[in-house]
């Protein structure tokens, strides 16, 4: 069943492709007044008045934005601004934290992600995630990649071999590990482990890959390789990346969302807010909001 819906998605993307191609940088920016939210043709995510709370604590609120397909969107902002929380609501990973609750409406294409009939397991199969610290399973390289396809179906050994090879090639790791697929994934370097985790996500053929500070535990060379990989992957996948590193956002993304922590002086509550969502080029040159400018120029945060 998941295979069928997957194909219908692919065709949807294909039909929307010409429109997208006819106006580069998408139709979003053509005649937009400052402060007006970006709109995309067939966005992957549409967030309306989204807020996330843990018990009584509201981590982030009033988020309105759309996230375009087959492109890289970056979330930046100071620590505690709710950018990771928001990212984790996009594939319902936040469901796993007791007390976490999502308010407002969050659509994945035209499906409500938090509709009572939506299955978190199905959501996560389509929307993969790569975490801050590389977290390979303590299994062989092969078994790490094969895990997702195995739980999502019963592929034959030969099919599985193909998936493993294809995924590792997509993650630019195949040449380094092809001779030791049966060795433990824990023996790889940090950067290799992170590319393995990306390959592992790709293996279940998601449409979206969420990346939560994927390079923060890596050295500059490994970081560069991941960034090159992301540029390659955006041809096939929609990527949303949370990063602490502004240069990284500037290098890899087409669109950037900037969040801050607003402190309510009367209640001393801290809540993350979306300040600005714009083309990355604009965010780092002539942003609409002065807080964005202060942050990207290093005067704040």
């Amino acid at each position: 069943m998941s295979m069928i819906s997957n194909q219908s998605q692919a065709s949807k993307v294909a039909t929307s492709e010409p429109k997208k191609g006819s106006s580069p940088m998408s139709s979003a920016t053509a005649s937009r007044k400052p402060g007006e939210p970006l709109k995309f043709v067939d966005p992957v995510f549409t967030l309306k008045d989204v807020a996330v709370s843990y018990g009584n604590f509201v981590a982030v609120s009033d988020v309105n934005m759309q996230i375009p397909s087959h492109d890289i969107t970056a979330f930046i902002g100071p620590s505690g601004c709710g950018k990771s929380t928001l990212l984790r609501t996009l594939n319902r990973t936040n469901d796993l934290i007791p007390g976490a609750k999502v308010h407002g409406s969050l659509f994945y294409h035209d499906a409500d992600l938090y509709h009572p009939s939506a299955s978190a397991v199905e959501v996560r199969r389509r929307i993969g995630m790569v975490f801050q610290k590389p977290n390979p399973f303590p299994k062989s390289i092969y078994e790490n990649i094969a895990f997702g396809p195995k739980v999502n179906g019963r592929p034959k050994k030969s099919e599985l071999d193909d998936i493993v090879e294809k995924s590792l090639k997509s993650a630019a790791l195949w040449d380094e590990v092809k001779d030791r697929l049966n060795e433990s994934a824990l023996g790889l370097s940090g950067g290799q482990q992170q590319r393995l985790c990306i390959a592992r996500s790709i293996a279940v053929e998601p449409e979206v890959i969420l990346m939560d500070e994927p390079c923060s535990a890596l050295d500059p060379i490994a970081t560069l390789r991941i960034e090159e990989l992301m540029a390659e992957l955006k041809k096939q996948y929609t990527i949303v990346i949370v990063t602490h590193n502004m240069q990284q956002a500037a290098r890899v993304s087409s669109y950037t969302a900037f969040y801050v922590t607003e402190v309510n002086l009367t209640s001393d509550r801290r809540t993350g807010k979306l300040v600005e969502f714009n083309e990355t080029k604009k965010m780092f040159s002539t942003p609409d909001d002065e807080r964005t400018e202060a942050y990207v120029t290093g005067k704040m945060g």
Partner: protein
Amino acid sequence: MSTTAQSGSAVMSLAPSTHLRRRNLIQLVITRLMASATVISVLVTVGIVLSLLPTTFRLLREITTQVFGTVWAPLFTPSQYGMAPLFTGTFIIVLIAMVIAIPIGLAAAIFLSDYATFNLRRIVKPILEILAGIPTVVLGLFGLYVVNPEFVEKYWPIGEPLAYTALGAGLMTGILIIPIIASVADDALSSVPRAMREAAYALGATRREVATKVVVNAGLSGVVAALILAFARAFGETTIALMVAGSYPKLTANPGDPMQTMASFIGFAGIGDAEVGSSAYNTIFLVGTVLFTVTLILNILGNRFISRFREAYE
């Protein structure tokens, strides 16, 4: 030099003051005391083991291949030293205990680590640990006066169960080690990093798949350690076997029959009226050595698995 120079004649002294010398002395005494406490506890253990060996070897030289016989009657004349009935008795009772305790204990551990809410786990976990501390004599009594007459005697289809049965002893030993397996395995599973679970969920795995295919796999050495420790506990359990299985070293495979384990033989024979140098006295040492060796190996294996597990995640 420059600091002392300012006061001219006063030379800075780094020699210890009287007060510091006293503190150093106290420190030395305490260090020696703690070191000797460590040495004593190690020496006592080694001494006990060594004291078993001469008598064991003396008896072994005397009886040689008789230990491979099938009749265990060292307390009668003529004595017979075939250890087979003790081995089968021990094996069957431990087997029954493990067959009961492994599924229940592991299911409980997986439930506690991956299904139970934080609050439920906080309540249940200490209860499990209390259960692990129930005096075995209480379990033995229950086995003797409830399990044997009410269950085994009434429902066991093979033979005619008497007041003492290996099945009852195996059941009660199983109940004894369930909390050990549940508690130690839960510790292992709960310390599998959350990142591991999130990675699996993010690939579209269900809660059951996350628990059984990732968490148990990642915590496997801890789980194996739990099983080995539980096995060692069941293997050395004396009171329950003595009270519930009787003291009849019968060579049989029918769990409805009475049996004797190695531990319960020692408990039975070593109650003080064995004369030094007598055959009863010597066999206690022999069985004790075998029991000790097996338990030691199991404990070493268990600890090795635990430390390997810690290496991977700490």
